[in-house]
């Protein structure tokens, strides 16, 4: 198991290097003079020269790349052009907001998706199965920004049940400890604040959870159907085990391997896909951070934001790989 983990970790190295190359390349792929593009047509030649120097663009590219790598390893993610702040310091609250939102959305997606998929497979071709699968089909086909807009319109504007913007009510503040407000409010023991945080999470989390829920449900169903047809489940049936137990206790463990892949993949995609949800719900996460940076052509922020998200994505997939080993005893031998 340990050697497997280390091997997988070593295999990540070329991927991570490739990733930094691509992110590094973003600024160099901009047609024309990047500094000019960033500052706009009215910029003075002096300002352009200064920015070029600040970004190190006057150096040969490989020197720039090694400087870039060195900076990343020393925890320096560059400086934002917009507000001249170090990105490494600025990025954490945004990242925390995204992680909180994605985590809640993933919990919803896993609980709803897996159960819907299991029941669909168990009661294959029943009305329940059909309705679940039609819903799942619509779920994977839904533009989540559209769903978010409709949610806001229905639950905030028409019914006025839930807030539609931000992580907090405008007037309140939460003392950031971890920047994960669900945890921060509980540490402080402020339960009304906690409730407020939860209410703000509901709509964006549902919007963000829609696609993963649908994908997990579909994957669970097909994986489960496959397992239920297998010889070893027939063996279990031949022992006289009841169907409910067969499905939840035995078959689920087998069926879970492809489901886990999907969960890992979707968790990563969520971190990236949150950009749409975050712009709609004014959620100050990393997606919104990058989105705003794009509007301002703040390339260092774009680069670092993308790098951080991609790094998280790769790490999530790495952890997923390790989790296989816990479920599937055969994996140790590969």
């Amino acid at each position, binding site marked *: 198991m340990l050697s497997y983990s280390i091997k997988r970790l070593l295999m990540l190295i070329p991927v991570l290097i490739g990733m930094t190359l691509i992110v590094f390349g*973003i600024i160099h792929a901009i047609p024309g003079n990047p500094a000019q593009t960033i500052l706009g047509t009215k910029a003075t030649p002096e300002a352009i020269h200064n920015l070029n120097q600040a970004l190190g663009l006057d150096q040969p590219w490989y020197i720039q790349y090694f400087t870039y790598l060195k900076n990343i390893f020393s925890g320096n993610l560059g400086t934002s052009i917009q507000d001249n702040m170090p990105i490494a310091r600025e990025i954490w609250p945004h990242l925390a907001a995204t992680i909180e939102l994605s985590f809640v959305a993933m919990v919803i997606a896993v609980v709803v998706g897996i159960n819907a998929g299991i029941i669909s497979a168990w009661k294959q071709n029943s009305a329940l199965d059909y309705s679940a699968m039609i819903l799942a089909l619509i779920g994977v086909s839904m*533009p989540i920004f559209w769903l978010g807009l409709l949610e806001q319109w229905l639950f905030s504007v028409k019914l006025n049940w839930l807030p539609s913007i931000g992580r907090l009510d405008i007037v309140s503040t939460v003392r950031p400890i971890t920047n994960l407000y669900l945890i921060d409010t509980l540490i402080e023991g402020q339960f009304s604040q906690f409730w407020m945080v939860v209410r703000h999470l509901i709509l964006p989390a549902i919007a963000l959870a829609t696609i993963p829920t649908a994908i997990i449900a579909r994957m669970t169903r097909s994986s489960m159907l496959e397992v239920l047809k297998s010889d070893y489940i027939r063996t279990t049936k031949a022992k006289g085990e009841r169907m409910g137990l067969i499905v939840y206790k035995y078959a689920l463990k087998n069926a879970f391997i492809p489901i886990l892949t999907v969960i890992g993949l979707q968790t990563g*995609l969520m971190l990236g896909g949150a950009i749409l949800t975050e712009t709609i719900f004014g959620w100050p996460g990393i997606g919104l951070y*990058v989105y705003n940076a794009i509007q301002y052509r703040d390339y260092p922020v774009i680069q670092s934001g993308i790098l951080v998200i*991609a790094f998280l994505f790769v790490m999530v997939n790495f952890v997923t790989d390790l989790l296989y080993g816990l479920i599937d005893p055969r994996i140790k031998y590969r």
Partner: protein
Amino acid sequence: MPQSEQNTAVQPAEEEKGPFVRNLLEFWKSFRKNKPAIVGAVIVLFFILMAAFAGFIAPQGINDQNINIRLQPPSASHWLGTDDFGRDILSRIIYGSRLSLRVGFFAVIGSIIVGTLLGVAAGYFGKFIDTVISRFFDILLAFPSILLSIAIVAVLGPSLNNALVAIAIVNVPVFGRLVRARVLTVKEEEYIMAARSIGMGNTRIIFNHILPNSFAPIIVQGTLNIATAILDAAGLGFLGMGAQPPQPEWGTMLSSSRQYITNAPWTVLFPGLAIILVVVGFNLMGDGLRDALDPRMKN
């Protein structure tokens, strides 16, 4: 199912048709039984016809503005209402189908061509070539897809065509890996061993045996990817990184209408429904094709 010597005799009438036609007939037979797939195909056909004949069907032009009738609810003269410039939403949706289908088809065709070439090379030749190409796929796949397309658009500048290019690039590894895996599986099949045993060379094996047997999964994945490409294009449009107003791209329409959602929800509702419908169509058709083409489902 056991088959007997006598009972497999095909009717002479069917026998006269070429093998290709009979293959097609057989495919159609199993596809026809799949009702959801038919529904999907009908939806897709509907949108294709709509795009082709937009000029004839649309009651008004794309940009026929009339400030006097801005933000009107659906009515007999404007079935789906009007937007903030008084443009007919139905007409814009009809014209918009051209943009969405264009992005969907061409992005996917681009990814298929590049992905297949790389995938075949990696799978068939293996070793060093495989390592390089596979690492390249790994790196591209290390970015969440929407984020990578945003990054590409951020570099190329926002426009529908750049969004198309971005989506195509992002999907290259999807097809590349699919084809590579398919080639690896097919390569191990006994009929490839048989082809080698009769003295056949590499090129001929790839073109006569491996590619035809990789065709079905590419078609299936391609159909499903048109669906996601349309969704991604709409998402980019919504973020202002795809089609630019006044182009009637559905995501872009949503983005420019979102401020009117309270007073004129139809301006948001209908473009969204159009996206869902066409995406559902491609998804259903893709699932249906998988069932009809997947050799594992066939006896």
